[in-house]
């Protein structure tokens, strides 16, 4: 690829890329997200290519420069978001989505689908007896509005040419050749795009205040340290459409007046780092990144920093410390990051999804953007929908969609015979929402009113077999582990809260423990140094508010209503159902079950270690948890 040195050259290059794309009249897109790769997607791609090669069917992995005859495109795409059904293979032009594809299916895909245009029904998604061949008709997708994720799963994630062919970098082009920096920022302000990283701070306002700083040296930083357990929106964007993120960051650089950008990616996302590196190298080769962008004389460089496993580095000031090669600890604010950020210079920090929104705001205008979702939280939001739900995966819906629509329409309802109990939103900094909150619109302000937050967008759905005290303990264990130790309220306070929660789930809860938790939570949330510390008690506060009776049952009755806290469960054999087969006694690892053949057995509670082996082995379902 030759360097592009003017707008005209970019336009001509786009035209030739789009032309080349047209010749790929048949296409097999193999999902190359972390989930599908784990399921063997790359082997499937190799096998398909081998089979097509063997039959001398012309295939194309990389988009060609010159127009040529028709070919079958074989592409590694980004994450479709429907990870549970992976490995996923999309067939074009029909738009079919094949699910749970195995190596054995490859031959049929080539013979029947590619050569004869037949749909392999056995690989199509099925729900309640209906077969959904087309991806867009699957209920999981039909109810979504995919804007930020529009390319994920549809284009080759490692080809800047494909991104350009479908009008990628047109927003950058517009910013470089038609708009002044002030006009760009005004457009972003007018769109009311709010930061997707958790706080919901208006992006345009942040850009403006960073631009206004007098220091000529400024930095653009992207937070890709998506540490919330149960969230993977940013991973999917970085893996599936890395150029979109780069485009958003370059635009920010031009608007704010910065020539250096940093992307901080967490260590657990090696594939995202790889894809970003490829995208950066290709953009540099084309002159879209570098010293003289498209011949304008404007410069912008992007560096990647890999995290090293510290959740606290998702906090702005800790993140910049980490990029500087220091211990990632937050500092007291003000001064804010826009005044005093990376290398003590003015710094604009946004997260991946926020930057990825920028190109469409510029291309379609602020009015268009404000038309999606509610007025004070416009646009869409990507959520990672996980837990005890039928369709887990990455979804994108307009802001303001209700939780009920998300869980029961997009998510397909509860998995198995479980009953909806709660959904944890916003990870370890967020809260839980229950049945009564199902019709609350998901947007920044509505959630804040009920003591929860969108956070980065993790939605973990829990059924009636989930113990909420145990969930609170789980999150407290997480934040306690990840506390950086700089300030006392977080370092010591979360430890005390964890101790209390641990003794409650172990059956040693004391009278006054709930009040003690509330007092500690109040102190920590008012006095901790950074946002992570301040929000650490949120899961406890919100589970106490919604499920106080569960806490009380653990403390006073020594019972776990969900039957999940093993130390509070005991197993008994129902004498009416027990046939005396002795299977349980033979399976018990500690010899706690006694009895005589053909008469009911009993469990010695003093010996029982509550492993549950007897329950799953009983052929007559005679053993119950109480």
């Amino acid at each position, binding site marked *: 690829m030759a360097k592009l040195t003017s707008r005209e050259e970019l336009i001509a290059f786009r035209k030739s890329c789009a032309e080349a794309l047209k010749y790929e009249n048949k296409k097999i897109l193999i999902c190359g997200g*972390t*989930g599908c*790769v*784990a*399921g063997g997607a790359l082997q499937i791609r190799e096998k398909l290519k081998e089979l097509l090669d063997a039959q001398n069917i012309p295939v194309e992995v990389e988009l060609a420069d010159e127009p040529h005859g028709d070919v079958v495109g074989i592409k590694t795409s980004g994450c479709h*978001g*429907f*990870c*549970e059904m*992976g490995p996923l293979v999309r067939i074009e032009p029909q738009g079919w989505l094949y699910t749970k594809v195995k190596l054995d299916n490859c031959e049929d895909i080539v013979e029947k689908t590619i050569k004869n245009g037949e749909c392999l029904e056995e690989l199509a998604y099925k729900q309640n007896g209906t077969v959904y061949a087309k991806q867009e008709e699957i209920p999981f997708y039909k109810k979504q509005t995919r804007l930020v994720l529009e390319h994920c799963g549809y284009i080759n994630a490692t080809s800047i040419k494909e991104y350009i062919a479908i009008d990628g970098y047109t927003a950058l082009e517009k910013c470089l050749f038609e708009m002044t920096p002030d006009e760009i920022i005004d457009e972003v302000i007018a769109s009311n795009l709010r930061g997707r990283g958790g706080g919901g701070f208006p992006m345009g306002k942040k850009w403006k205040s960073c631009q206004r700083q007098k220091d000529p040296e400024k930095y653009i930083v992207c937070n890709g340290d*998506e*540490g*919330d*357990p*149960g*969230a*993977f929106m940013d*991973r999917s964007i970085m893996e599936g459409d890395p150029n979109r993120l780069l485009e958003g960051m370059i635009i920010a650089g031009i608007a704010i007046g910065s020539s250096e950008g940093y992307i901080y990616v967490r*260590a*657990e*996302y*090696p594939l995202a780092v790889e894809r970003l590196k490829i995208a950066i190298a290709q953009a540099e080769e084309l002159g879209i990144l570098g010293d003289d962008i498209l011949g304008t004389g404007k410069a912008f460089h992007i560096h990647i*920093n*890999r*995290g*090293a*496993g*510290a*959740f606290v580095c998702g906090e702005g000031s800790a993140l910049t410390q*980490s*990029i*500087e*090669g*220091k*211990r*990632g*600890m937050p500092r007291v604010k003000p001064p804010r990051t826009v005044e005093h950020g990376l290398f003590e210079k003015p710094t604009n920090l946004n997260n991946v999804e926020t930057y990825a929104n920028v190109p469409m705001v510029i291309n379609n205008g602020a009015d268009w953007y404000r038309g999606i979702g509610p007025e004070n939280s416009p646009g869409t939001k990507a959520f*990672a929908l*996980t*837990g*005890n739900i039928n369709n*887990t*995966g*990455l979804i994108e819906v307009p802001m303001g969609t209700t939780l009920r629509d998300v869980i029961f329409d997009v998510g397909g309802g509860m998995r198995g015979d479980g009953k909806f109990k709660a959904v*944890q939103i916003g*990870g370890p900094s967020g809260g839980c929402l229950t049945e009564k909150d199902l019709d609350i619109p998901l947007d920044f302000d509505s959630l804040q009113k009920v003591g929860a937050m969108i956070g980065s967008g*993790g939605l*973990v759905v*829990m059924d009636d077999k*989930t113990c909420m005290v145990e*969930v609170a303990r*789980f*999150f407290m264990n*997480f934040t306690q582990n*990840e506390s*950086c130790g700089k300030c006392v309220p977080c370092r010591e306070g979360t430890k005390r809260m964890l101790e209390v929660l641990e003794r409650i789930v172990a059956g040693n809860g004391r009278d006054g423990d709930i009040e003690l938790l509330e007092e500690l939570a109040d102190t920590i949330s008012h006095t901790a140094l950074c946002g992570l510390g301040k929000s650490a008690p949120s899961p406890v506060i919100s589970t106490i508010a919604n499920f106080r009776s569960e806490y009380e049952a653990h403390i006073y009755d020594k019972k776990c209503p969900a039957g999940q806290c093993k130390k509070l469960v005991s197993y008994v054999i129902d004498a009416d159902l027990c046939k005396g087969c002795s299977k349980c006694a033979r399976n018990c690892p500690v010899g706690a079950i006694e009895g005589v053949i053909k008469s009911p057995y009993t469990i010695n509670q003093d010996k029982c270690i509550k492993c549950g082996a007897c329950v799953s082995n009983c052929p007559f379902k005679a053993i119950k948890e109480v």
Partner: protein
Amino acid sequence: MNENFDFRPIDDILAAHGTDHGAIIAILQDIQERYNYLPKEIFPYLADKMKFGEARIYGVATFYENFSLEPKGKYIIRVCDGTACHVRGSQPLLDTLREALNLSETKHTTDDLNFTVETVSCLGACGLAPVMTVNGKVYPAMTTEKVEALLKDLKEELANG
């Protein structure tokens, strides 16, 4: 301290990243990748080469979870204990591994340095929960039976060199 420690690989890593203090995390990451842990010999060496306080380097190494000052096993098994994996049962996987390899919450690496078992907060593969990784390769939708089969395979792999 090992007097005969071969610093040539460290020199190569330093040459690739430069001695700017900001590069320390990337340098430590590469060293950890090379040795599977951070040998103690590297601290005075890096301090000298980078004109950087040894305590500062040690501070960075101990702050981040990914760095280990203890040697790790040939197979590093990481069980995801993110929220989604947790509610779909990651704990039984961890229990099975620890029991089979005679490890515990405090003892992560087997004495023969073949296996290390640790937890990781979230791998971002929540749709496939519960997941674990062995030397970076993701194993989706695990069960205790699959864990046992996997361990058997890994042990066979070890036996066959």
